[in-house]
């Protein structure tokens, strides 16, 4: 038996689960670690999404230089949960943040950002210091909004020129974050101009590629035509979607464990592949959103509840099931 001490056995060296050595000589000389930025393979750098579970699922976090898009659900504002966590994480790490929103009072949204668990008075005092950045941006948006009747599509390039200036000011050392809420929503003034909007997203993507920043854009897909929705999806490097779970759905309650605590569902459609042609295949792509103590968001793989013996099916399936094997309520 293996319990006998065998002199021929060598102690097993724990090896990294990565097949490539992350510290291979091909990586550039290590620069001093920037707070809030985690290095990854192939010269990649990650920033946290603000949700630790999501960082793990995506293999490190949001890739710097990539565009993350979140497809909204018309029934529930779960995309705001993602945005809030993304923005507050940036504030905690003192990364310059640009926030654009179609809401009449974007500052109100800033007020709902979760404060970090161990916040000191200092941090809270510093957080408003970043508001002028965000505020300027909102002012810019509002002004653009009013004049849309007169200038038409000129405002769209202006929007991202402003973004570019902000990015350049934001400092070359620190990673930047751009959060855009509900970009093609009807309140957003540009929703009529399909081509201009998609052109803006494309320009933003090109700008982000050559910069040290991440952009998170949420957009309601139901507003776009199917073909434009696909264009937006192709422009995303990382594509997520959120879905509401109906309350008090007896079928779902039977199907899933922990149904009562679930706020919604998150589906990962694609994960950023920059500098590599290998697609990231996740073990599971659909996760449930749960709020823990009303503050932190946790993501869990879906677990199918044990099947009732009396219903006649032969055996209970357990363990993480990906969304594709489920029936219609959870199809994306």
């Amino acid at each position, binding site marked *: 038996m293996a319990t006998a001490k065998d002199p021929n056995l060598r102690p097993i060296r724990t090896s990294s689960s990565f097949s*490539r050595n992350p510290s291979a000589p091909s990586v550039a000389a290590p620069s001093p670690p920037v707070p809030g930025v985690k290095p990854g393979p*192939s*010269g990649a750098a990650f920033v946290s999404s603000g949700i630790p579970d999501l960082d793990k699922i995506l293999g490190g976090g949001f890739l710097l230089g990539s565009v993350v898009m979140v497809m909204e659900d018309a029934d529930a504002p779960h995309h705001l949960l993602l945005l809030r966590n993304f923005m507050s994480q940036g504030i905690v790490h003192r990364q310059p943040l640009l926030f654009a929103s179609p809401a009449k009072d974007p500052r109100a949204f800033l007020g709902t950002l979760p404060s970090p668990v161990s916040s000191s008075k200092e941090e809270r005092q510093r957080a408003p210091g970043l508001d002028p950045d965000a505020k300027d941006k909102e002012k810019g948006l509002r002004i653009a909004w009013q004049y849309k009747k007169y200038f038409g*599509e000129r405002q769209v390039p202006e929007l991202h020129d402003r973004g570019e200036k902000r990015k350049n000011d934001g400092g070359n050392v620190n990673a930047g974050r751009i959060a855009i809420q509900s970009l093609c929503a009807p309140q957003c003034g540009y929703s009529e101009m*399909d*081509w*201009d909007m*998609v*052109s803006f997203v*494309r*320009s933003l993507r*090109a*700008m982000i*590629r*050559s910069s040290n920043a991440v952009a998170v854009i949420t957009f309601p897909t139901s507003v776009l*035509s*199917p*073909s434009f*929705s*696909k*264009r937006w*999806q*192709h422009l995303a490097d990382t*594509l997520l979607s959120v879905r509401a779970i109906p309350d008090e759905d007896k079928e779902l309650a039977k199907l899933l464990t922990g149904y009562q605590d679930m706020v919604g569902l998150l589906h990962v*459609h*694609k994960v950023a*592949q*920059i*500098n*590599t*042609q*290998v*697609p990231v*295949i*996740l*073990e599971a*792509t659909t996760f449930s959103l749960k709020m823990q103590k009303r503050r932190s968001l946790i993501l869990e793989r879906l677990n199918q509840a044990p099947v009732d013996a009396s219903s006649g099916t032969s055996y209970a399936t357990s363990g993480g099931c*990906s969304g*594709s*094997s489920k029936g219609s309520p959870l199809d994306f």
Partner: protein
Amino acid sequence: MNPPSNLLDEALGLGHGGAMAPLPAGRVVLVEDCVETSGAFVLHHLLKRALSAGEGDGAVLFLALAQPFSHYDRILRKLGCNLSVQRSNNKLHFFDMLKLEFPGLTEGNDIEGGFVELYSKIQRAIEASRSKEYSRGCITIMIDDLSLLEIAACGSIDCVLDFLYYCISLTSELDCSLVILNHEDIYSSEEAPRLLSHLEYLADIVIKTEPLSTGLAADVHGQLTIFNKGTCNRHGHSMNKIHNFHFKVKENGVEYFYPGSQY
């Protein structure tokens, strides 16, 4: 040195008799992909083939709208091809068009003008390449990807199609090949997919990447369907053939295999 031929090369009509030939001249290759399965790896494979043809044999004009040079450089390096060296040897003409904008968004003339300028740049690059001595190889023009060209043209499909027709004329007049990457699912959701039907009609070879009907899997990343019009067998009879097989993408290459024959 001839690397072993794989299913993709065979389906494309390359690699027969062990010759590592780049794309035969005068062909239009359309690569179609979708959100779930990216077809970029096909482009990388063809790019590598076109650049590995040997000294003086052909060049590549790469219109990159989707990614910056560093992205392709890193990927091709893992595949065993150094893009920086090829670029400095003028075998690779890399057009960085990430931020390409045709001026004058509302006026048709300016969009056309932008395309005319782009086309003349391409023509100049081809002529510069041909003017070198002993260069009789095939020049491959690659576009990554066409839907972004359409966005840059603000949806003006006529201009995009005109530009494409001009590029296709190069395949017959100047002995070039054209490889286009297009996102098929954007156009198939339209009511009248004009661009898609034009492209599929004009292409000599259509390579389509799709996810498996059973969904995602770690071992099989998707399936390839290749429709090769105008292949000729030994007797000169035309044989249209459809190939279908699965693939798995890795850092240093792609594995192609028939369903069920892996492991």
